């Protein structure tokens, strides 16, 4: 959408922020009205964070800020100054998928993949709080995100598999 920039003072309408994104800290000059989601995609260049509804309903843009899953379409980039941001790009290490991503793949938890990064970030934050032992807990954990093609059964299976393997590791250690 074309936006009339004539009102904008190029200096006053921007602020410097310092953020840590997937472990790497950097300073950016951001337009104050820029959403965190657009900042991550267009200024940082991490396109794994997707924008669906842009009003907080779909969850596709979910990222983790200071250990909490949030909608990046409902924050301005300028508000993230000083915080630590995790996006889906931070999950795989050297091209090796994280165990949760592996479970998603093994259980056919995605089809088109548009919503997947949001689901993954919501679940990563949730699994840090504790294991997900039952289908009903899994569905609760999924409830803040929307998938419009595959449905949720594969994701429920992936979560339970993942949680069981974490439990198994803990019990065996």
């Amino acid at each position, binding site marked *: 959408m074309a936006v009339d920039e004539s009102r904008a003072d190029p200096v006053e309408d921007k*602020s410097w922020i310092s953020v840590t994104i997937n472990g790497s800290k950097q300073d950016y000059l951001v337009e104050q009205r820029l959403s965190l989601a657009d900042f991550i995609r267009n200024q940082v260049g991490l396109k794994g964070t997707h924008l669906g509804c842009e009003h907080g309903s779909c969850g596709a843009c979910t990222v983790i800020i200071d250990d909490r899953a949030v909608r990046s379409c409902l924050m301005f980039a300028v508000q993230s100054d000083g915080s630590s941001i995790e996006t889906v790009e931070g999950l795989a290490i050297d091209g090796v998928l994280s165990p949760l991503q592996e479970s998603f793949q093994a259980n056919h938890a995605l089809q088109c993949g548009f919503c997947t990064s949001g689901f993954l970030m919501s679940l990563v934050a949730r699994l840090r709080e504790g294991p997900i032992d039952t289908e009903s807990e899994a569905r609760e954990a999924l*409830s*803040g995100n929307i998938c419009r093609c595959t449905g949720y059964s594969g994701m429920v299976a992936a979560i339970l598999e993942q949680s069981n393997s974490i439990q198994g590791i803990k019990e065996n250690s």
Partner: protein
Amino acid sequence: MKSAPFKYYVPSEIDEALELLYQLGDEAKILAGGQSLVPMLNYRLLSPANLLDINRVSELKRYSLTDEGLKIGAGVRQREIELSPEIELAFPVLHQALTNVAHVQIRNRGTICGSLAHADSAAELPSVMVALGAQMVIRSGVGVRAVKAEEFFKFHLTSDLEPAEILTEVHVPKLPAKTVGAFEEVTRRKGDFALVGAALLGQWDANGQIQNCRIVCSGVAPVPLRLRFAEDIVNGTDLSDQVLVNVQQSVMDSLDPTEDIHTSSHYRKIVTGVVVRRGLSRLVDQRGAANGSR
């Protein structure tokens, strides 16, 4: 779908915020959690010339639970209150209501006071605060005033706040001993605004009768609606099945709820009766427990 340009202010002190607000007046919107405001900015339903971000005002980011009750500052996230075991123990009805507010990703950013100031008549927190007899602490450049929750909500999306005022804190008074409570709602999908919600409080007396019952519904009127006629029916009774049937019928006969895109007035009336009956049943479930320590 991007917000229109705005001038961004990020004060670090409450006095600085109030001074800015006084200067900017109704040309400014206060940004706290942003979970209601930012969608409206993205849709350009609102395009304020100035945004006053209060997230860096450390004084507003505190809450405290004392013998007097619970005080929650305007910067406190809903999720912080939800996760406090002490608050869950002292105000179970508030905890239950919070778990019904949108989704965890929203509650991680959304604030308690922001939801109250937004004054959505379908939201959970306004009705639960009316039931709890909470006080809104409102500050401006010229002073502080307190307003009862019951008088704070004026209309859908309209509160008692003036343009130069900030809802800086909400005070929830300590509940009387042996108080029981329940929060019930019916939604079409998990996390949606409820078609109807109900916050209920009361105390079981030594004779096994409910006293001082408060029943406050969301979604049925432009403000949280206290069902005094239903309270009159149940107070002094044992909430027997017959009483519950009578209340449910009375609610359906008496109300003329809002009709909107989500449902008809007729259906909402039926749902209100059901939600109130379910809430009262939950108070019955707690009759034994209430004769314990609290």
